[in-house]
């Protein structure tokens, strides 16, 4: 039974540091045009490209990204 994985983004925590974008092997991440409450143009993902490897979640210094299984 293949598990269903999702990349969850808690964009309120994102500081737009760009690390996840840099390390994502699939180039699935980018900064969006909107600001969160802290004033940062937070990260968004392209679910098509994302392979749920959690590389981004491993490096993100602000615990924004997480791949969860259901």
């Amino acid at each position, binding site marked *: 039974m293949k598990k269903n994985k999702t990349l969850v983004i808690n964009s309120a925590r994102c500081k737009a540091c760009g*690390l996840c974008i840099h390390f994502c092997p699939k180039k699935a991440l980018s900064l969006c045009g909107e600001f969160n409450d802290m004033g940062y143009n937070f990260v968004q993902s392209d679910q098509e490209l994302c392979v749920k490897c959690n590389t981004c979640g491993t490096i993100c*210094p602000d615990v924004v990204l997480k791949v969860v299984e259901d």
Partner: protein
Amino acid sequence: MKTFREEKNFSWCPGCGHGIVARLCAELIEENNLRDRTCCVVGIGCGGFHHHYMEIDALEAAHGRSIPVATGYKLGLPDNFVYTLQGDGDCASIGLAELMHAANRGTPITVIMVNNGVFGMTGGQMSPETLISQKTPTCPFGRDAKLHGNPLKVSEMMQEMDGVAYLARLSVATPTLVRKAKKGLAQAFKAQEEKLGFSFVEILSPCPTGWNMKVVDSYQRLAKEVAEILPVKEFINKVGGES
């Protein structure tokens, strides 16, 4: 995760390595079911925010004195899990004697030194770990080995101490190293839980603000330039587990 307070945004700068370390600690506390009896002693420095984001008891020690505070705490509650979270300024500059004595005594606590090579909180001044030629507000012409000495190899100084049960230099420079850092940290925690003695992990971490660098560049510098001088390495492992 009960340990981690997701609702509270970190107040660290964008890209700061302290966030990664905090997450790893929270995960390990949770995974090892330590939360109920954990006490974290934080140093004065940016690491002093560490405990703001966790549901654990915490003590804020005077600058450089986390280790004696942890020692006193452990004496009073020997079955609790006690770790310090200190910066390189806190731990290796003003607090060096306390570190070395606790290590030599084999005090069963875990010391985490987040080594970002500067005094982050006070504005990026030179620390014992600043690399040669690196410019900071207090060595504006770059650290000079003749005037300031070379980066202090803190981990190496404890190599011959019998009291040390786990000793490693780790890094958060890349996702791979972050995973490795978690394993090292897990061993350090275990060393304490198994009452094997003192455990110390030095975690190389970036301070993009203090280094005056773009975040991604700061991680690259950490992976290359810093690691060349301060190699990622496990020095002592009496736990015997995988790491």
